């Protein structure tokens, strides 16, 4: 009886590839349809496109197209002074720009040997965690949004706006902050900031309970998410999977834990993991990460000193020359390992920077691989569950 309703026949013959890797699909045979998901499509994450070939509802081949957001940042920063790189650099990933500022400052500090004061480290940790919080408030309910559960998105976006308000109070900017600078940060917390942030965190606590009832206890959501878009454990190294996507198959990789930076070794946390590797596992990992981030922000606010020095002295930024060298710095963004390769040549401009975004692997090779055999309805859900962010692919 159960086989009667099993509508997923054996599709092991896909992908229809020839020996040299080219596609063995004859579009004129009328058995296949070519579909473009994006760039002008309400479902895709950002401005990217997936070209899929479908047979019925099954995808036989997928190809990611990027480059719609290419601005040539790496080229632009090569012709700017170190300090001029900051306004340019933060626009590389719009979802959580603070990681870009942190990496750029950290690279410059690494190469020129500047130590930053303790208070600045605490403030940087706080800002990075707040950035993660606002990003998770968008993506955790966003997974429900891919299954047309728009209610959670509406609630989440409201709370995200509150966190952005706190950012505005602290830094003056709503999306782009430019708060972290080489040598430290730009300012102390305003009066009453902690209380106001705590009020918002309490609202988020309520939201965490509500979103569990709405999404994770929902029968239809489970039906759509469990067993769909599975990442296998052996893929993690093969495809360079990092962050929550790797943690959802039980491989605990977290830069905050493994290569502890800033003040993370003084905080008490354990990166959440799951075992199944499907969409449901990834969204539960993100959900537990949301709970953990709220907890981390509370810990930071409790342990942080009230006042202190926030900026180490730096040379005049307009005539700053850094000796020849290169460095690779990394941090854990909400999508995974976020690194920057920074090369200087002794002049007043960097020779080369290269951003290593997690989506570079997730959205290209991994997505192309995962979409084969998937149902056409799940394209968007898989894309969101990998949390792809096109600007960091093409920069």
């Amino acid at each position, binding site marked *: 009886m159960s086989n009667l309703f099993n509508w997923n026949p054996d599709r092991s013959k896909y992908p229809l590839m020839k020996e040299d890797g080219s596609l063995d699909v004859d579009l004129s045979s009328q058995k296949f349809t070519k579909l473009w998901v994006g760039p002008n499509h*309400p479902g895709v994450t950002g401005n990217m496109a997936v070209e899929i070939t479908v047979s019925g509802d099954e995808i036989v081949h997928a190809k990611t197209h990027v480059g719609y957001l290419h601005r040539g940042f790496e080229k632009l920063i090569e012709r700017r002074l170190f300090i001029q790189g900051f306004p340019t650099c933060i626009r590389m990933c719009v979802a959580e720009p603070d990681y870009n500022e942190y990496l750029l400052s950290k690279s410059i500090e690494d190469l020129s040997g500047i130590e930053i004061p303790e208070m600045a480290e605490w403030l940087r940790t706080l800002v990075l965690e707040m950035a993660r919080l606002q990003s998770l408030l968008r993506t955790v309910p966003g997974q429900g949004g891919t299954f047309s559960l728009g209610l959670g998105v509406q609630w989440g*976006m409201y709370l995200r706006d509150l966190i952005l308000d706190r950012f505005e109070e602290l830094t003056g900017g709503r999306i782009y902050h430019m708060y972290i600078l080489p040598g430290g940060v730009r300012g102390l917390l305003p009066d009453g900031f902690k209380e106001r942030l705590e009020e918002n965190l309490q609202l988020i606590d309520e939201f965490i309970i509500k979103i569990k009832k709405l999404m994770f206890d929902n029968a239809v959501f489970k039906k759509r998410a469990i067993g769909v878009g599975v990442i296998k454990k052996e893929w993690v190294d093969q495809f360079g999977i990092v962050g929550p996507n790797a943690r959802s198959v039980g491989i605990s990789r977290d830069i905050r834990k493994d290569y502890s930076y800033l003040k993370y070794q003084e905080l008490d946390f354990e990166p959440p993991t799951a075992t199944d590797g499907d969409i449901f596992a990834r969204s539960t990992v993100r959900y537990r990460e949301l709970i953990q981030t709220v907890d981390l922000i509370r810990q930071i606010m409790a342990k942080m000193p009230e006042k202190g020095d926030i900026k180490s002295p730096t040379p005049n930024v307009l005539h700053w020359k850094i000796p020849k060298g290169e460095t690779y710095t990394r941090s854990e963004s909400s999508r995974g390992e976020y690194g920057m390769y920074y090369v200087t040549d002794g002049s007043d401009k960097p020779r080369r920077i290269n951003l290593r975004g997690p989506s570079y692997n997730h959205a290209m090779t991994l997505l192309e691989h995962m979409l084969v055999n998937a149902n056409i309805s799940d394209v968007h859900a898989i894309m969101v569950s990998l949390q792809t962010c096109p600007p960091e692919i093409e920069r």
Partner: protein
Amino acid sequence: MTNDKLNKNQIEDVSKFFAPENKKKNVETPDGQIIEVNPLSDYFSEARPKVHEPNSSKVVETFLNWARAESLWVLGFGTGCGSIEIPPLLTPRFDAFRFGVQMRPTPRQSNVIIISGYLAVKTLKRVIRSYEQMQNPKYVLALGSCTINGGMYFDSYNTINRLDKYIPVDVYVAGCMPRPEALLAGFMKLKELIKAGKAENANKYVENFDEYKANQKKIIKDWNMPDYNW
């Protein structure tokens, strides 16, 4: 304006960029005849667009303009980093639905296209296609400094500097990035323009069609589509 055919040589020049299914080919019909198929001219119209004059009756036109202003359907196409401020616009804090702003997923049904920030050349091609598929009257709302003069990407090799050289722009919203309030103010300004009957840029695009096309073709090197995407 006449429906004169476009110069076919222009299309054939760039045929190396075509996808295999769009290239000229010979096809055998079921009864054994061999016919030549040129998908670009067979499946797509090559006619030029026409100017659509407003209704001759002033009263009717005023009423219709009011309806157009109160029902702005926005194409859901996030072209740049400004698109991160579109979701807040539709959620409790800002709630643009109050002003009749709604998102539509397809260009056919939309009236407004928001160019949310910088435009890479590759995206510009898609934007032109989307813009041309929208129906008259249509409005363009350009978001961010990068659409005005290139903003902070003034020296980038892959982003355009001035949007109004490629498609006519109704309202600019300055800032990098503009806050959702500024975007709402932009919508209000657009409404004013529509109600005053000044937002006739769809016709302006048709009147200066050749000039716009020349500018577009200057930077889009692989022009593998019809000149006007019906």
